[in-house]
């Protein structure tokens, strides 16, 4: 009787240990997923994109207005939409929107708020919905009348349209810019000198949302070669498709282990066997989820 009970307890302990191991292993898998990483690297080139954060899959989208939005704010938003719809890249239109009624489904829903604790306007990511690839299925954009009704906004022709265009940029997948980019639409404050998408904003948009509106956005998650740390500039030297010639530097202030190729001259199958990798179109920007190679570790390796 005692022996049987002991066996029962031993089995229970074993089961608990196995169960804990499974749970633990599962959590390692969760945290090891590359989607946990935020890429912030391209600020130096005038645009920065959210490959692993919420973004949209193309330039074709739709919007609607919350039922309480007044006409003036609807016009601001339509003005922002116009700014993107009039953009072209290589002669082709990059964005097209359909306005839906409040009862219909739309990718963007615009709300009007009055809240002094928030910014001028924002893409409300905590209340957005995305699919498994972090592509928006629904993105609320909130316009804050606390600021947008102030004379410097309301009475300045086109300023509130610019605010809306900035938020639509976030919807597409463009990040705010902080460094020397006050002349870009995605500059983080409402003091940008560019009230419409600049060529850099457009380039970022076509990278994140698809090269042209007819193409779908995909990106390569692993490409471990063609990039190396440059210890002098504390950046990463990135090689072009052809002949492994360095074409520029990927400044990666916040996440040194990551790199990014932003060359836009590689719109064909690119044999980089000399560098040890190949790539396929239509990527203009390719995220390089390389292993951690720091200047310190490189120096150690060379020594």
């Amino acid at each position: 009787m005692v022996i049987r009970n002991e066996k029962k307890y031993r089995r229970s302990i074993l089961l608990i240990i196995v169960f804990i191991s499974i749970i633990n292993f599962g959590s390692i898998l969760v945290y090891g997923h590359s989607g946990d990483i935020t890429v912030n690297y391209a600020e130096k080139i005038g645009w920065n994109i959210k490959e692993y954060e919420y973004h949209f899959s193309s330039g074709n989208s739709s919007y609607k207005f919350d039922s309480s939005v007044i006409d003036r704010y609807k016009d601001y938003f339509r003005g922002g939409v116009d700014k993107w719809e009039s953009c072209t890249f290589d002669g082709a239109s990059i964005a097209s929107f359909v306005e839906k009624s409040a009862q219909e489904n739309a990718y963007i829903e615009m709300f009007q708020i009055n809240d002094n604790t928030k910014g001028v306007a924002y893409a409300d990511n905590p209340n957005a919905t995305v699919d498994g690839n972090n592509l928006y299925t629904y993105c609320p954009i909130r316009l804050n009348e606390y600021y947008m009704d102030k004379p410097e906004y309301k009475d300045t022709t086109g300023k509130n349209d610019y605010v809306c265009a900035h938020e639509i940029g976030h919807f597409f997948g463009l990040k705010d810019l902080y460094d020397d980019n006050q002349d870009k639409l995605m500059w983080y404050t409402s003091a940008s000198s560019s009230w419409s998408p600049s060529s850099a904003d457009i380039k970022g948009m076509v990278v994140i949302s698809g090269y042209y509106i007819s193409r779908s956005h995909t990106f390569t998650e692993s490409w471990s070669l063609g990039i190396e740390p440059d210890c002098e500039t504390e950046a990463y030297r990135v090689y072009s498709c052809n002949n492994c010639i360095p074409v520029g530097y990927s400044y990666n202030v916040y996440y040194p282990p990551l790199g990014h190729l932003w060359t836009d001259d590689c719109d064909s199958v690119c044999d980089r066997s000399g560098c040890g990798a190949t790539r396929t179109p239509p990527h203009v920007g390719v995220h390089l989820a390389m292993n951690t190679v720091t200047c310190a570790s490189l120096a150690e390796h060379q020594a």
Partner: protein
Amino acid sequence: MVYLKKLINILCVCFISFIVCSSSEQDTKLEGYLEGLMPVLSYEDMLQESELIAEVKILKKLSIAEIKKDPAYYNGWDGNSFFEALIVEDYKNTQMNGQKIVLKQLGNEKWRYENHPIFSVDEQFLLFLNKASVNNTISSIYYIVGFMDGTFDIEEYESKKYAKNRGREFNSLDEIKVKNITGLKDTIKYSNKKYQSIFLLNDLKYKIKDTLKDGDKK
């Protein structure tokens, strides 16, 4: 036999703790960054809009449940953090020294602005503060005027207190010139190939007094 039972009990407790810990860790994982256009406020704007300009010490983080009844808590939007904070020194001379306030910061462990980390207990900042309002309903909760631009780390060098704009490091001196928030004659600190703009807190105190005095004269 008794030991086995005890062992199983201990294992069960460990297991439950593990589950609780791992789920709370997952709850607080950063999901992404808040994105929005920040207003541009001059030093004078910030001074006028701020009811309090104070050195503030974070005492504790408040749970959302504690704060939800306040109308300034926007429609259940859970992108904010709330703290109980102590006014260490009020530079606008509104007799708030030593008082406690509730402070609202945009962002939480899941969602925050990229250059605006969530405050931690015992951290001390210089903050430009005003009362929060939603749809013109004024709350007792304070928010940071100018957001990142109204948040300064406090550092001590040679027994003098300096303030440094939080989360902002600049690549060149020109950038600092553009972004001189306070209008004070800033000292430039250079380290790690980055520039930081810092200023003496004492200078700020006098500047506030002078500016307010000028305002009164008008």
